[in-house]
Every structure is written in C-alpha cells, then in structure tokens.
C-alpha cells in the first residue's frame, strides 16, 4: 500500500497525529524517569489506570477524563510514600500499582464485568480514537511539553545531582512533584496508544535507545523524541498494512530501534 493511500483515511491521520504527540511527551519524560531510576512508575501508574478505567465505565463516564485526576493523585501518592514512609521508589510503585489493579478487579466484579470496553483499554486501540480524544490528547500534550520546556534546566539539574540543585535554590520537591504529575497525565494518554499493559514501554524504550548513542543531554532528548515518534508512525503503518495489533506493533518497532542502537554502540564504540 502506498503511503498516500494510507494517509487517505481520517482515522489513520487522527492516530498518527495523536500518537506522535503522545510519543513525544513520553520520550522526554522517559529520559528523566530512566535517569532517576524511576522507570517503572509508568508501569505502576498504568496499573492504576486499570482501576480508574473501571471506575469510569462503572459511572458511565469517559475513562480518560476519570483517569487523569485519579492517576495524578496516585503519582503524588507514590512520591509521598517514597519521601515519608522511607520506602524505595520501586516498593512505593508496587503498593500503588497493586491497589490500582485490585480496585479495578473489584469494581469490574461488582459491576458484573465490562469485558469488551476494559479489554480495549488494556491493549489500546489508537485507530478508534475519536475527534474529541484527539483534541484532548493534543491539548494535554502541549501543556506537558510547555511545562517540561519551562522547567527543563531544573529537571536536568535535579536529575543529575539533587543535592546540588537544592543548593542552587531549586525547589526540588516541587520539581519532583511536577515530574510525577506530568507522568500521570502522560500515562493516561499513552493508554489509548498502546494500552495499559504496554504504556511503560513508550516511556522507557525511546529513552534507553537514545542513551545508547547520545552525545549530550540535549542530544538524548532529541534522539529519544525522534525514535518515539518514528516508532509510532512506522508501527501504525505496519499494523495497518499487515493487520497486526497497533499497540504491540509500536512497542516492537521501538524495541527494534533499541536493538539497532545497541548494536551500533557495540560495533562502533566511542574512543
């Protein structure tokens, strides 16, 4: 199939535009999360979205709108548990994540199951995204991008050396809260692209791919963004042409980029 034919379909154009915006946001946040060894927060928050989607379906409200505040609160919960309960980040993520899954199962059970709807959120279905969802995703992505760019230096400094950042006058608690809140919003958006089960891949894979070959911090951000957006575009194209599940194809495309970067680094090592 020619690219032009492929772009002829409105649902494909919607998926490409929305997916690219979400991938861009995921890739930038992913670099910060991976470098802080907080990669699995995406996975944990995605599990929370399972519970929040169930609440949305139970209340007959759009799951994305119900999920955003719940997941943002959960992201702050993970941060507070890490700070106040003297837990390592992975333990805090584990607690919040399992509560999300348990809550979702309980709600689904009480409601007698939502089978098809819940399944589509678990594995994603960006090709069925509505115009309203496109609008929401683009607006929220732009908000996240704006906040990342406004606090870029603070995030860079805090990620590299939190203590020095504090002495520089940076309110690192605020910066950490901003990071997890933005991650919360992004995870909900990413759920529509690749599904709850694969959300963390959109955060982690482009970042770790960029880390294989990057030559500076800015360069890491740029490479991560290009890889994430390319993976979404290529993934949607391949899944459409070969009739494969879109979310899984996007993730596998990301993984192929990672393998290529890994091989490149090992074949052409730095001086």
């Amino acid at each position, binding site marked *: 199939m020619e690219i032009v034919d492929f772009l002829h379909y409105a649902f494909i154009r919607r998926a490409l535009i929305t997916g690219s915006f979400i991938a861009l946001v995921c890739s930038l946040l992913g670099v910060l999360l991976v470098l802080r*060894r907080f990669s699995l927060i995406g996975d944990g928050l995605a599990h929370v979205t399972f519970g929040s989607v169930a609440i949305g379906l139970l209340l007959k409200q759009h799951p994305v709108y119900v999920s955003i505040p719940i997941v943002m609160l959960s992201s702050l919960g993970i941060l507070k548990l890490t700070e106040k309960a003297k837990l390592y980040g992975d333990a805090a993520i584990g607690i919040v994540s399992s509560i999300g899954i348990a809550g979702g199962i309980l709600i689904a059970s009480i409601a007698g199951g939502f089978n098809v709807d819940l399944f589509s959120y678990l594995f994603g279905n960006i090709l069925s995204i509505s115009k309203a969802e496109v609008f929401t995703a683009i607006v929220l992505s732009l908000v996240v991008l704006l906040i990342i760019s406004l606090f*870029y*230096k603070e995030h860079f400094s805090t990620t590299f050396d939190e203590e020095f*950042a504090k002495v520089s006058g940076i309110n690192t608690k605020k910066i950490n809260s901003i990071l997890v809140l933005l991650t919360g919003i992004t995870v909900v958006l990413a759920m529509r692209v690749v599904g709850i089960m694969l959300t963390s891949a959109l955060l982690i894979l482009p970042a770790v791919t960029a880390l294989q070959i990057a*030559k500076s911090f800015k360069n890491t951000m740029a490479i991560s963004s290009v890889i994430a957006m390319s993976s979404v575009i290529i993934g949607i194209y391949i899944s459409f042409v070969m009739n494969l599940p879109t979310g899984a194809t996007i993730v596998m495309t990301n993984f192929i980029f990672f393998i290529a970067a890994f091989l490149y680094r090992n074949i052409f090592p730095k001086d």
Partner: protein
Amino acid sequence: MSINILSIEGLNFRYNSLEVLSNISFSINAGDYIGLVGPNGSGKTTLIRIILGLMKPTKGHISLFGVESWKFKEWYKVGYLPQRVLFNPYFPATVKEIVSLGLLSKRGFSKGLDIPEETMIDEAMGLMDVLDIKNKLIGDLSGGQQQRVLVARAIVNKPELLILDEPTTALDPETREKFFHTLQELNQNKKVTIILVTHDIGSIGKYASKLLYLDKRIVFYGSFEDFCSSVDMGSYFGEFAQHLICHRHD
C-alpha cells in the same frame, strides 16, 4: 572593616539520641580561607549541610551574608562541592553541560546561555583544566577528571563563598597540589571566601588562613599561628601531631 559572610551561634544537632554537633559558634569574614578538619564522624559534613540548608539544626542560629539562613535566597553567592556526587555513570551529559548547571541559581531558568555566560563556563573549565574535554560525557572521564568538572561547576558562578567537602579525595598528588594552588588564587586574587573540609591537615596548613578543628564541638578555631603556639592544642593533639601540622605550615 571586614564583612561577615557566615555567622553561627549556639548550633546543636542531634540525630535520634546521638549528639552530632554541640554548641557550635563561630563566624567567617570575607576573604577568610578556613580549613575545616576533624576525625571521621566529627560532624564536618553535617555542619556543611546545615549551613547550606540541606539539614535543619536542632537548635541555634545561622546567618549567611547577614541574612538568617532560612530566609536566605541569594544562593548564587555560594558555590558548593559535595563530598560524594552519586550520579548515574551512564548519565548522558557533557562536561560543558554539567559546568553550566552551576549558573542556574544566578541566571534564572529557561533561557539559553549568552556570550558572557559562555565565557564564564570556559573560564571555569580552563581553571580546572577540563576545557579540552568539554564535549566528553561525564561518565567517560576518570574519577579525578570528574572531580575537576564538579569543582568547575561550583566556581563557574564566581561565588563569594565556596564550600568544598573533601574535594581532593579522587585527585592524584600532582593534581591535588595544583588544585590547592587554584583555590589559593581564587582566595587571594578574586577574594573568594573558602571553607574547605579535608583530612589533609598537613597540606591545608600551607594554604588556609584559619583552622577550624571539629570533633562534635569546636576544639580549635583560629589562625594557624595561634594553633601552633597553643599549649592547649599541644596537650590535646600531642606535641608530635601539633609539630607535624605546623611543620608543613612553616
């Protein structure tokens, strides 16, 4: 009249039931070069972290540049090198990017570097001899090179007070001497006030103007001349140890 840079009064710090710092009072004037020494666990790093607002004292008052530390906002006046920077060895930042972080407190955020700032970064890198590796990733450098990059980050802002917590631990003897010499130049030519935490009591005697010996309390604070002529210090350290410190200073 000398300008007061740091003033500490009646500072105490307890961790659970353990007394870490007891009744610490001293002040530092502009242009002082303080060697902060003491045995392991004597509270040196804790004192530095309290001065920098990273820890809260149990009791006592601290003022920086005449302002109570909890109200102090002008952090661009302070340069800091922590004892250990536990950064990710695969962190993808270049030497220049790391050094530029030292400018954050002064310049605000979100804007790109202007020409004077580029010059300041180059000067700091030149001073610490890392200019020729400015585009290398921090993780690709040796321990000594990384330490020099972090010192460049601490001085890039041209701070009025420079606090360095054991900065020479990863440096070879030649680089260490050069480093001490650079600090002396900063102190004498640029009038930077320095607090240097070190175990290298012999070397610090050659460069610092004052000695602050800490062992959970202040054992001695004053000039090296006073330290060397003090009978009390002779009894506290033993005459041999006192001679060893003072011999290097003479």
